[in-house]
């Protein structure tokens, strides 16, 4: 009965070390860097755009460090705040909902490559946690689970505003999930794979980046991704002027922070998917993957050269991701909120037909080119 392929192989130790390092890296990037810093970025950016000074009150002996100390003070405040559960709320579900929201946002990153493959001392390192064949489908699957956090949170709070927010989340996610899947079919057709590492390698040539091959798919995907992220202009589930705060009205302290963190982590994931699918992943324009490794190999020798190339590629990937996060945040402060019927109409009557059209067009072009 025992499957012997799981017994230790000579490659096990380097593979385990590689896996641990990659998971630790992604976890630190998400929880340690992005989750706290993005809150500061958002406050500073909105202040800049609205001609305010912005977060600058928290200080140590008069030093405010551009408001960066607000990260610490916010975290401290959220930690010590009373954790309130309203009367009549479904306690276990109320407790569970923030966790259901955060976990999918964290694990979605597993299939996104933040670098290519490198030979280090005879061991091939692949800079992706799980190089799944189903690739993008895994992200869709995880993203569809992320809905439950908000929906259950809205239900369990025993509050009409929360319930309405939860209902809106359900309807909005359901509508845009379908469209989001279809917008990316064009990309899968062009590159002939769902695997994100394969798609990444196929974008080595600057003019074969997804944005040039699938411009319509790119625009539609951004619209769907924003809707899935529940941020302005698609933030009707938490519309302050109508629903107080929507599905997390009754949440406080750390549980509130978890909903908030889930939203930021989803944004990081969206930016990473955008980079991996449409903006050449870890590639530097006009420099091939092997080319950089060889060039670094000349400078530092084969092994340290590969490490240098690896670090450069990873850095390029994260720079692109940060650039996209900034753009995604810009959208929030630029556009007003849609009405609920407008969101639904945009999803079903504009994005979905256009996505279908994009698939047909892509198919015709591929046929013609062949």
């Amino acid at each position: 009965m025992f499957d012997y392929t799981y017994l230790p192989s000579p490659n096990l130790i380097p593979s385990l070390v590689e896996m641990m390092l990659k998971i630790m890296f992604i976890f630190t990037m998400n929880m340690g860097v992005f989750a706290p810093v993005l809150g500061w970025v958002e406050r500073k950016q909105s202040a800049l755009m609205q001609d305010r000074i912005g977060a600058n009150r928290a200080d140590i002996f008069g030093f405010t460090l551009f408001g960066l100390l607000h990260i610490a003070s916010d975290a401290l405040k959220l930690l010590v705040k009373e954790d309130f559960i309203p009367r009549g709320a479904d306690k276990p579900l109320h407790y569970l909902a923030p966790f259901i929201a955060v976990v999918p946002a964290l694990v979605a990153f597993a299939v996104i490559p933040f670098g290519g493959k490198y030979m280090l001392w005879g061991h091939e390192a692949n800079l992706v946690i799980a190089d799944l064949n189903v690739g993008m489908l895994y992200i869709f699957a995880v993203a569809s689970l992320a809905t439950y956090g908000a929906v259950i949170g809205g239900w369990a709070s025993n509050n009409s505003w929360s319930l309405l927010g939860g209902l809106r989340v359900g309807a909005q996610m359901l509508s845009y999930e379908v469209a989001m899947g279809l917008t990316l079919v064009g990309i899968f057709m062009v590159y002939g794979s769902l695997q994100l590492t394969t798609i990444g390698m196929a974008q080595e040539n600057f003019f074969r980046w997804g944005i040039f091959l699938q411009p319509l798919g790119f625009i539609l995907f951004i619209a769907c991704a924003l809707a899935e992220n529940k941020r302005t202009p698609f933030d009707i589930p938490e519309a302050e002027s109508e629903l107080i705060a929507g599905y997390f009205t009754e949440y406080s302290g750390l549980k509130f922070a978890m909903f908030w963190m889930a939203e930021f982590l989803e944004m990081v994931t969206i930016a990473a998917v955008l980079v991996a699918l449409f903006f050449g992943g870890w590639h530097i324009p006009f420099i091939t993957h092997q080319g950089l490794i060889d060039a670094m190999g000349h400078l530092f020798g084969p092994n340290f050269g590969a490490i240098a190339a690896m670090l450069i590629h990873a850095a390029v990937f994260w720079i692109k991701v940060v650039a996209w996060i900034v753009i995604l945040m810009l959208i929030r402060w630029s556009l007003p909120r849609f009405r609920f019927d407008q969101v639904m109409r945009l999803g079903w009557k504009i994005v979905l037909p256009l996505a279908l059209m994009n698939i047909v067009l892509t198919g015709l072009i591929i046929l013609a080119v062949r």
Partner: protein
Amino acid sequence: MQLLIFYGFGFLALFSGIAMIMSRQPVTSALLMILNMFCLAGLYAQLGAHLIAALQVMVYAGAIMVLVLFVIMFLNLREKAGIVSKHGVMTQAVGIAVLGFVITAMVSKLDMAKLPAAKAPAADFGSVVAIGRVLFTDYLLPFEITSVLLLAAIVGAVVLAKRKV
């Protein structure tokens, strides 16, 4: 290791399935069903059928159950005493007895020795390419007929929705 994961998912799936039927609260039932479907997806993934696993989570646990939850929330179904079955102890006992009989009959017919030896699946088993190829060659007709059926269902839904306006 593999066996452990299998038992973990298997027991969780059984537990959530039974708990789903036993639960008095519609929302809890729906959530347990999601858990059940998620466990099934885990079992599929363990068999190497990654595409089926991803689709199981995406379509069933993701899309369809969101719809179920949406309807439950929309109608605001809270815990009600009337939901629990009113059948007597006798009826329940008979039901359990019949189920037990069926299961023992099935198990006794199973002759482990007669089962063919397990074959190692092909290297690309369960991958998107392998399933896609089979779907568009060997099973093209059923595939197309299913899509026509789904189209008919969509048209039907639109007609039903339009009537009310």
